Every structure is written in structure tokens, then in C-alpha cells.
């Protein structure tokens, strides 16, 4: 009888626990994050007629398993300004709106501080839609600019 009761606990340690000794035990969540598409495209437009360029929306699918009632968060951090050769467009000219809100929220891209795209508690398994916008300007020089944007799902 003793073996019958202990065996499931040992199995739990082997499969879910990061730490199974004395003191404060802990476990790791399973995180799933996907983007579709994984490109954010701003087409050329006349700054007078199109002061803000809207990119096709990005669908974000996210899932946090075994999170209990802990917090989770999705952040965005740009790898740098939009760049082509020596010409740049400050990444702060890119903003976004997102639905559903909450847990999603609007914001402005940064290359130095990760910005919150969505946050909540519990065990989410949901989909969100993000629409990025670029403030258009006559001061932008001709070219095809690129920048990376890292989406990070973290818990707790």
C-alpha cells in the first residue's frame, strides 16, 4: 500500500517539477506562442494623403499551461530602428492597437524597453489581433527599411 501511494508523487516530480527537494519547490509552464504572418509590412504612401500607414494585421496565438493563477505577459521589443543603409526611421514611429482588450493593449514600439502587448493571470489559450501603424513623413528617405520585433510570452 505504501508503494501504491508514493509512486504517483515520484512520477509528478519526474515530469513536472524543476526542483523536487526540500524548501521551495517549483514547476515550469508550457508556453506556446505563434505569429501569423511573421512580417509587418508598411507600403509606400503619400504622407499628405496617408499620414499613418497601416500594416496588415498580425494574429498572435498564445497558450500557457500549468500556470495556476500566476501572471503571464506578452511583450514587444524592437531590435533597433527601421534601417536601410545609413538611413533610419525611429522605431518609436511605429505604434499598435490590439484586440481583444483586455488582455491586449495599445502601445508604441521601443528598441530599449520591452513594451507590454498583453497581460493577465491564469491559464490562457487565446488568440489576439495586432495592427501596427507607421507615422508617415516627408522626412523619410527613399528605401526599404527593416527592423526585427521580438514577441516574448513569459510566465509567471
Amino acid at each position: 500500500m505504501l508503494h501504491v501511494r508514493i509512486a504517483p508523487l515520484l512520477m509528478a516530480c519526474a515530469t513536472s517539477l524543476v526542483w523536487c527537494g526540500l524548501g521551495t519547490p517549483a514547476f515550469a509552464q508550457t508556453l506556446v506562442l505563434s505569429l501569423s504572418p511573421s512580417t509587418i509590412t508598411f507600403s509606400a504612401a503619400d504622407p499628405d494623403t496617408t499620414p499613418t500607414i497601416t500594416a496588415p494585421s498580425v494574429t498572435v496565438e498564445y497558450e500557457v499551461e500549468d500556470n495556476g493563477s500566476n501572471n503571464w505577459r506578452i511583450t514587444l521589443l524592437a531590435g533597433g530602428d527601421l534601417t536601410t543603409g545609413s538611413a533610419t526611421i525611429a522605431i518609436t514611429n511605429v505604434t499598435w492597437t490590439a484586440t481583444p482588450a483586455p488582455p491586449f493593449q495599445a502601445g508604441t514600439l521601443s528598441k530599449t524597453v520591452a513594451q507590454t502587448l498583453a497581460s493577465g493571470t491564469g491559464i490562457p489559450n487565446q488568440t489576439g489581433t495586432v495592427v501596427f501603424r507607421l507615422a508617415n513623413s516627408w522626412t523619410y528617405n527613399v528605401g526599404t527599411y527593416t527592423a526585427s520585433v521580438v514577441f516574448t510570452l513569459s510566465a509567471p
Partner: protein
Amino acid sequence: MMLATALPAVAATRNRTATATATVSSRVKLSISSSTLAFPNADPDVTPAIAASGGPLTITAKASTTIGSTVQLVVVASGDLLSGVDQIGISALKWTASGSGFAAGTMSKTAAQTVASWVSSGSWTGTQSYTLDNAWTYAMGAYSTTLTYTLTAP
């Protein structure tokens, strides 16, 4: 399972990277506050240079070009000021200017004259104030010509 739900979670993260692309195409845009210039009749002794009655032209130029390229605004006359067989040499038409990149000049019918120039993309506004040199030698009449402005960016 009972044990797992009572445990604090270890921070975990999952990253995905998207690539943002923005395309900026070459384009120029030019606006001038008036399409006509008029110089009233005046006594050459009292008014040796006649200012345009409508006041300065306000010019706005906008250009998207490659970084470091020169954006240029020029003007050229189709010919001298004409009234029938009478004429006033177009070099009698001069201007002063204000605004970043704008410069004073004298009108020509043979070579486009620079009104303003800038480097790289941008939007600029300035004024151009025309005067017509007055002279007793001008025959009476209403003279006219055409001025063509051209904004270029490579």
C-alpha cells in the same frame, strides 16, 4: 498532481520574431500660393522697382529622395515680357526670398534659375518676392509671359 498545483512557477519565456518592413518611394510635390503675378503701373522715378501687387508667393516643396541627394526647385520664363511687338527683357524680373534653402535670383528665358535647393527628404516652405525693374523706356501696354517651376529629386 496535487503537489504540482501548490508549487510556485518558475519563470519561463517563449520568443517569436517578426520582421517589420517599410518602403519609402521617390515622390515630389510642389504648391505655389498664386498662379499669377501682377505688376501695377508706376512712375519709374518714384518706383524704380515695382513689387508684385499680390505680395510674396508662398512656395511649399516636398520631396522623398535618397539620403544625401539634392532636391532642387528651379524657374524659367518662356520668353521676355511681351505686349504685341513691344517687349521688356525678362531679366528685369527679379526676386528675393525667405525660408530655408531659398535664394534670390534673376529670371531667365534660356537657363532655369535655382529658386531653392535642399539635401535629402523633407518638406519646406518659403516665400519669393518678385519685383520688376521700372523704366521710362517701356512702351505702354499690358505685358505677359509664362513662368514654369520645376521641382526635381533624384
